[in-house]
């Protein structure tokens, strides 16, 4: 299973989501690796720190996560979209990010219509007006939204430094439920 994480904007949580999925899938005993297309190499840096797995030539992990640069015009993003079966487009609940996410979803749909494409609402704060507005705003677009969301938690940032062990029980459960929602897209 190949999962690409794309976004037109930076700072929406692509790399964090990539590392979180890597850690969650690793817990299940399945093999997982990350292909880092982002020139910033943030995913590679985090993986090196938490002893994660980068894709090796010839390796065939059960799940390959593809992190991409924050752009829709770079060939790396197009290559990731063409190669993936699942395309996740993270966005924060901010309207500006949502508009860009919708554009990224249309880009992915055009490049790879066979893939399961979902917008992921990241860093949500339950009950806030912005999160409710984000859902409403996204429901008016043609793009599909992943029903599972990830809350705005400090521990998700700590994963980049300490791996799975940095997550508290609530975060672990939320992340597992999120991972089920992602992996079931092709199940």
């Amino acid at each position, binding site marked *: *299973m190949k999962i690409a994480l794309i976004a037109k904007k930076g700072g929406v949580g692509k790399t964090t989501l990539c590392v979180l999925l890597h850690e*969650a899938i690793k817990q299940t005993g399945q093999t997982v690796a990350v292909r880092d297309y982002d020139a910033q190499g943030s995913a590679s840096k985090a993986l090196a720190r938490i002893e994660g797995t980068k894709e090796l*030539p010839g390796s065939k992990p059960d799940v390959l996560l593809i992190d991409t*640069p924050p752009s829709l015009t770079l060939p790396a993003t197009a290559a990731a979209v063409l190669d993936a079966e699942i395309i996740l487009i993270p966005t924060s609940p901010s309207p500006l990010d949502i508009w860009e996410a919708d554009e990224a979803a249309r880009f992915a749909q055009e490049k790879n219509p066979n893939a399961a494409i979902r917008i992921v609402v990241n860093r949500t704060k339950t009950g806030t007006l912005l999160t409710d507005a984000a859902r409403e705003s996204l429901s008016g677009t043609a793009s599909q939204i992943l029903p599972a969301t990830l809350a705005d938690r400090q521990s998700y940032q700590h994963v980049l430094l300490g791996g799975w062990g940095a997550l508290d029980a609530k975060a672990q459960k939320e992340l*597992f*439920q999120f991972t089920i929602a992602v*992996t079931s897209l*092709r*199940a």
Partner: protein
Amino acid sequence: MDKKSLIAQISKNLTVSDSEISLEPKKSRNSSPQKENSSSRTGDRTDPPKSPAVSKVKKDAGAGSGKQTALWLDDEDRSILHEMGMLLYSQGIKPSHNVVIRAAIRLMPKDHRFFEKVQELASQDGRKIRHHK
């Protein structure tokens, strides 16, 4: 749901997904399922490997399978190949362009560096420049 159930659900999703991936070529290529595919189409080497499953079938065919490929190389490429060949020779390994290129494509990084280099080389491609003139 406890942690174990969540982990089991993810594993189940991934396992189901894997079997679907191997069946995908069946749908897109209007041919028989993969198992039948490997037995009934043995020796058929006319179709290009368009899917992971087809690539796998070809790989299983053995180390002897393959095709001749012609490459266009500029003077710098040829000089690098020669240099790598000399390096192999210095290690007591019989040098050839074939082994150098095959090792290189397995070792190359699959990241932004690859795309940047491709763009750079494409812009310097002598054939293209001549063609545009």
